């Protein structure tokens, strides 16, 4: 079984939901993002999403945009992002890592080479925000070959008919984008989640993660009452941003504050007995 499947199977036994924090690779620099990444599992992260910085993150709100710009200014490259995962894997063999980003840097790197190198680095799953099922053939054969799960997004605008198409070949887990909008800008209502998640459950047996609109431990707890995992990104990045100096450099608080915040979010998520 893959690390992602193992992880969700274990959580199911423990009757808890998964906490999935998001951080941007190389933000605010390589070393700091590696330290945060290394400390997240102990703080309660069950899986981790690592953002691949892109100059034009169309689906992201101001917080993630700023993180991507900082990362690029600090010299982020795809090669460094993969290296980050690889270094993390030196000491951690069990926490699944999902890379999340946009088509162009992956296409430029080369789909086949990317999947090959990502497997080697210890990447488990991949979310390419602007590559819907209509375009997924670009990378799918290579992802399958190198045992990387392609995580599909489902949105509030996805109709039941379309859901069948989207989920036909989904693997790993399903990422429910809980709001129509960009990351970190608003919060999904409980009502809308109550309606959407059962629809997905009916169409697939895969675990369901909720993301895009969660920022507090309460949101995360709410999400795992209905679904299997809660993704929190912008809220953590806001904490990271608040610790930086005026030149966007990390301070002694950066890693501690982010990890403290992650721990609270994890506690919220894990407070729910499923």
């Amino acid at each position, binding site marked *: 079984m893959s690390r992602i499947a193992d992880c969700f199977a274990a959580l199911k036994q423990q009757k808890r939901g998964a906490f999935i924090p998001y951080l941007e690779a190389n933000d605010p620099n390589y070393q700091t993002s590696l330290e945060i990444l290394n400390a997240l599992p102990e703080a309660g992260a069950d899986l981790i999403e690592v953002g691949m*910085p*892109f*100059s*034009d*993150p*169309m*689906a992201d*709100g*101001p917080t993630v*945009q700023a993180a991507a710009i900082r990362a*690029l200014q600090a010299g*982020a*490259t*795809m090669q460094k992002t993969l290296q980050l995962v690889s270094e993390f894997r030196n000491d951690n063999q069990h926490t699944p890592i999902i890379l999340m980003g*946009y*088509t*162009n*840097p*992956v*296409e*430029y*790197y080369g789909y086949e080479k990317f999947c090959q190198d990502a497997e080697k680095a210890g990447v488990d799953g991949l979310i390419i*925000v*602007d*590559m*819907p099922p*209509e*375009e997924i053939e670009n990378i799918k054969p290579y992802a399958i070959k190198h045992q990387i799960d392609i995580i*599909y*997004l*489902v*949105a*509030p*605008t*996805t*109709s039941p008919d*379309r859901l069948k198409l*989207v989920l036909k070949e989904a693997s790993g887990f399903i990422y429910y*984008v809980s709001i*129509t*909008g*960009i990351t970190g*800008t608003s919060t999904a209502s409980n009502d809308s989640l109550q309606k959407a998640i059962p629809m997905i459950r009916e169409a697939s047996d895969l675990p369901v993660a909720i993301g895009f609109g969660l920022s507090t431990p309460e949101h995360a707890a709410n999400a795992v009452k209905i679904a299997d995992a809660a993704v929190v990104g912008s809220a953590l990045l806001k904490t990271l941003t608040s610790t930086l100096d005026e030149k966007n450099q990390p301070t002694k608080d950066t890693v501690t504050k982010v990890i403290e915040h992650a721990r609270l979010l994890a506690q919220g998520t894990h407070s729910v007995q499923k």
Partner: protein
Amino acid sequence: MRRESDLPLNSLRQGPDDHGRFGIFGGIFVSETLIPLILELQQAYADIQKDPTFQKELDYYLKHYVGRPSPLWLAQRLTDAGQGAKIYLKREDLNHTGAHKINNVMGQILLARRMGKTRIIAETGAGQHGVATATVCALFNMECVIYMGAVDIERQKPNVFRMKLLGAKVVSVTSGNGTLKDAINEGMRDWVTNVHNSYYLMGTVAGPHPYPAMVRDFQCVIGNETKAQILEAEGRLPNKIIAAIGGGSNAIGIFHPFLDDSNVELIGVEAGGMGLDSGETAASIERGSPGVLHGNRTYLLQNEDGQIIEPYSISAGLDYPGVGPEHSWLNDIKRVEYVAINDNEAINAFQLCTTKEGIIPALESSHAIAHALKIAPSMSKEDIIIINLSGRGDKDIDSVAKYLKVEL
């Protein structure tokens, strides 16, 4: 509107395929949230192509509101200056709002109305598309939000004020370099947030399918008229047609009806900026490589890690790091030749056209004029060049004055 069934099988006008592809270019690279809207738009666009009442309605507004057909002007004094081929100007600058942009905007606003949308979102670079969009929104009483880069707002102040007068909300975009690319990002973010009532009115032949095909089809009125007009004036087709390319909507509009006329050479003029190898350029085809941005695969200015490079041109309307996907394809199959004209050459052509013809061309169009003047001398006096004069240059006088170091 173009109907595929009328075309011969080997026509170059068949594209895109069902996946929105022109060869390897084009496609539908957007997030899942937008896909259902894109599919709805594809369906709505397919429906109006079969509906004669839509074309009739569009024709009415193009004639009585936009002022079409636009004239094809024999530019005798420019011809004399070039001492070679005869130069004609397709006067898109004479359209209502002063550029070709309104051809597309009128088509899309009528479509948006049929789809029951009440709020229009658009991006703008030079401001011409924003002004055209704000204009039709005023006409049809629709809410209008225009995203414009902060840098462009600074260099196109009159157009910003025009949009505001027309009742549009102009949102200044400071992310990235504060130009057209960033305005598109921000417009798409608005769209994904306001999916239920909003229509994204793309100003150029870029974006996810069906935009590149739809915008092209609405702009083909330029080429269709040109063909009829030159046949009437000269009894034959031109030797060359030249148009400026940012995203490429005016160029595709005049080129497309001539794609199957293999004797007509088509030349797209990109903005060389400070020079193709200066690092300060917007020539995506000549200095870019294939990549994916704003919903489609096309030639992009990007670095060795697939990050988009900020383009540069004196002309805000050409200041885009990509180009419409059909242009990328036309380049690769060598049906259209793509060349570059630098800032200084465009400024010279701007001045020459103004003093010789009494026509102040947009800086965008000045790039096309500059290239025509470059090649006309080596052509025969019997030869014909048609330049798409895509817009008027009143909006650019501040930029030109600054370049010429003139205090206004």
